[in-house]
């Protein structure tokens, strides 16, 4: 099956710093999503981005499908950005929706 690798596994920042999280995947994908998991376990959708670039406030993401990687950028980080960030990819042939394969996540800690 498809492999998803996220880096770095852990990241510690001071409030106000910028960061880049990376997701590499081993095959072509139809679906790529970035999530933030809060301390209570809720997976919050950040981006649906199988290709291209998107921005939402301080967060932006870029997926280069031909090179099989995606980047999540966090600018001017805040303590509320702390948590685990997951990249998940989907591969399928249509007819029903695509199962997601998750990476192991990046644990981000933003200190005041």
């Amino acid at each position, binding site marked *: 099956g498809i492999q998803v690798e996220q880096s770095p596994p852990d990241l510690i920042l001071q409030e106000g710093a910028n960061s880049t999280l990376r997701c590499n995947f081993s095959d072509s994908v139809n679906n790529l999503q970035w999530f933030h998991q809060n301390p209570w376990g809720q*997976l919050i959708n950040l981006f649906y981005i199988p290709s291209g670039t998107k921005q939402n406030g301080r967060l932006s993401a870029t997926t280069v499908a031909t090179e099989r990687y995606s980047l999540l950028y966090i600018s001017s980080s805040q303590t509320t950005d702390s948590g685990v960030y*997951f990249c998940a990819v*989907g591969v399928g042939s*249509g*007819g029903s929706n695509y*199962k997601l394969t998750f990476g192991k996540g990046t644990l981000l800690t933003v200190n005041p």
Partner: protein
Amino acid sequence: DAGVTQSPTHLIKTRGQQVTLRCSPKSGHDTVSWYQQALGQGPQFIFQYYEEEERQRGNFPDRFSGHQYPNYSSELNVNALLLGDSALYLCASSLGTWRAETQYFGPGTRLLVL
């Protein structure tokens, strides 16, 4: 517009027992997927239901079964519970089309098996 809901939020069971977890998809969605997340790991796909049928299945034993109702809500059943079944169980809903769609997750059910 209600998002994905799951019940119960927490559950404690003993080895050998059976458990049923429930999920209501986001309004307008007809596809439900279930994931298991062990502590410190990413979620792993269990199975997916669409049009009341299991469409895809991950690498989980037959002790894990499910059902989808005509209103698109879904249940996950786990029989003969093992200690290793302790995890966060997440439900995701999406719109079943011929192209990939965004999946939205519920808050999860935390299962502890003693």
